């Protein structure tokens, strides 16, 4: 179970700048793992390597024992901006990835579109173009599109970074629900400590560039699995958030 997604001495060098240095750890299936670290530390690069969008300079990343060689639909990306295709409706966006699967009949496709529209609560907006819906809705569409295509792992690169505080909070709660309901594995990159603690089953804290694992924090052991807004106001949450914040601050100060 713990060997679902494994990182084996993963290293990345751009030109002669080391970005990720010998990182080894593994991620359990059906968990939400947050990559946390100072801005520009290499955590995004590490996640992009999971997606097959970058190749490790050394080491391997493998999913269910199979080394990642390039991008495919099992590992879907959700970006902060340009996350949905503007020329397709909400429905068209969700359906997009399924056109590359030949194992689904037309009726199965329609079924899936309906299912994911409902999951993200956008049934009433199925015919809207992305420029007519809010930023939060666009991020939901991006999540649904990946899931509809059949992703097992969602790779999210600061997906809520551009949203206002309230929308952001709501999407965090929804993401936890979706992840649990759909039993997916999520890697979520952020530099926002509060977001990290609220969302994560587990936080992997990275050092400044080149990224290496600084600390592995089991958040689920402290906060449990259910994350309601009440959790956000609990003593345990504040304490953990402060602890993690100190670790990050210390790392930023040291690297100056």
């Amino acid at each position, binding site marked *: 179970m713990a060997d679902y997604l494994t990182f084996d001495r993963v290293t990345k060098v751009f030109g002669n700048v080391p970005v990720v240095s010998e990182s080894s750890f593994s991620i359990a299936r059906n968990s939400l793992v947050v990559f946390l670290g100072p801005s520009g530390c290499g955590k995004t690069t590490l996640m992009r390597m999971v997606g097959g969008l970058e190749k490790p300079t050394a080491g391997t990343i493998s999913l269910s024992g199979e080394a990642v060689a*390039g991008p495919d639909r099992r590992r879907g990306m959700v970006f902060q901006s340009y996350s949905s295709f503007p*020329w397709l409706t909400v429905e068209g966006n969700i359906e*997009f990835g399924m056109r*590359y699967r030949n194992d689904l009949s037309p009726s199965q496709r329609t079924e899936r579109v309906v299912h994911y529209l409902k999951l993200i609560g956008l049934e009433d907006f199925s015919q809207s173009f992305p420029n007519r819906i809010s930023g939060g809705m666009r991020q939901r569409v991006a999540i649904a599109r990946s899931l509809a*295509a059949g992703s097992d792992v969602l790779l999210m690169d600061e997906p809520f970074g551009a949203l206002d505080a309230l929308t952001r909070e709501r999407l965090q709660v929804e993401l936890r629900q979706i992840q649990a309901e759909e039993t997916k594995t999520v890697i979520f990159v952020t530099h926002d400590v509060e977001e990290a603690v609220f969302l994560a089953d587990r936080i992997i804290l990275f050092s400044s560039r080149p990224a290496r694992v600084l600390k592995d924090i089991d958040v689920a052991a402290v906060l449990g699995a259910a994350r309601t807004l009440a959790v956000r106001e609990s003593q345990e949450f504040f304490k953990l958030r402060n602890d993690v914040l100190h670790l990050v601050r210390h790392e930023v100060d040291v690297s100056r």
Partner: protein
Amino acid sequence: MIRDLFVFRGRTSVRAEVTLGVLSAVLILLFWEAVARAEFVAPQFLPSPTKVLVALWTMTTSQHLLWHAGISTLRVWVAFLIAAAMAVPIGILMSSYRIIGASLEPMIDFIRYLPVPALVPLSIIWFGVGEETKIFLLWLGTFFQLVLLVADDMRRVPHEYVEIAFTLGAKPRQVLSDVALRSMGPSLVDNLRITLGWCWTYLVIAEIVAADSGLGFVIWSARRYVKTPEVMAGVVVIGVIGLLTDQILRMLHRRYFRYV
């Protein structure tokens, strides 16, 4: 009311804007008519707008003006379609594969700066004075501009779209057709529309130099006999065709790219 129209960076209604546009055009025409009728300037230099209108009518009824206009339009579209059919795929390839872009860009940039009229003599040596010369000159004036515009459109397709498609299981060819082409669509059509306008510029040059038909020929032969109203009528026809084409293409753009 009047003061509302003079707010710095203010807004006006569509109706007010149309009214203002028509009004100023009418005023200028009236002024022109008055100046021409008063004969401040010799009529062979400045005929009145009504004389131009009359010339337009007689040219249409007895001098095959519409046929000439048709010939010119046909030349523009043939050359434009050839240029577009070549420029779109080449431009896309230039931004898709660095090796193609790096090899072609310097050469295209050089040719782009050659003024088309400077190549007229060469073109006549190569192709004579037939249709080929006109098509070649129009193609020359548009292809090299358009190919760089297309390359730029392709380059501006957000890389996120490409990466999303790859992680949804698309192959490179599918990313090209399902994502890149769709994403660049609106700006591509805009650039095609602008380039089509340039075609008309080169058309007149080509028809003045070597033609016995077309609007450029009409304008140039009228000049020989100082039939200034006919010269102006020819120019007006080009303007009207240009305006109409542009409006139709804009309308199609609004219709197909509603999501922009």
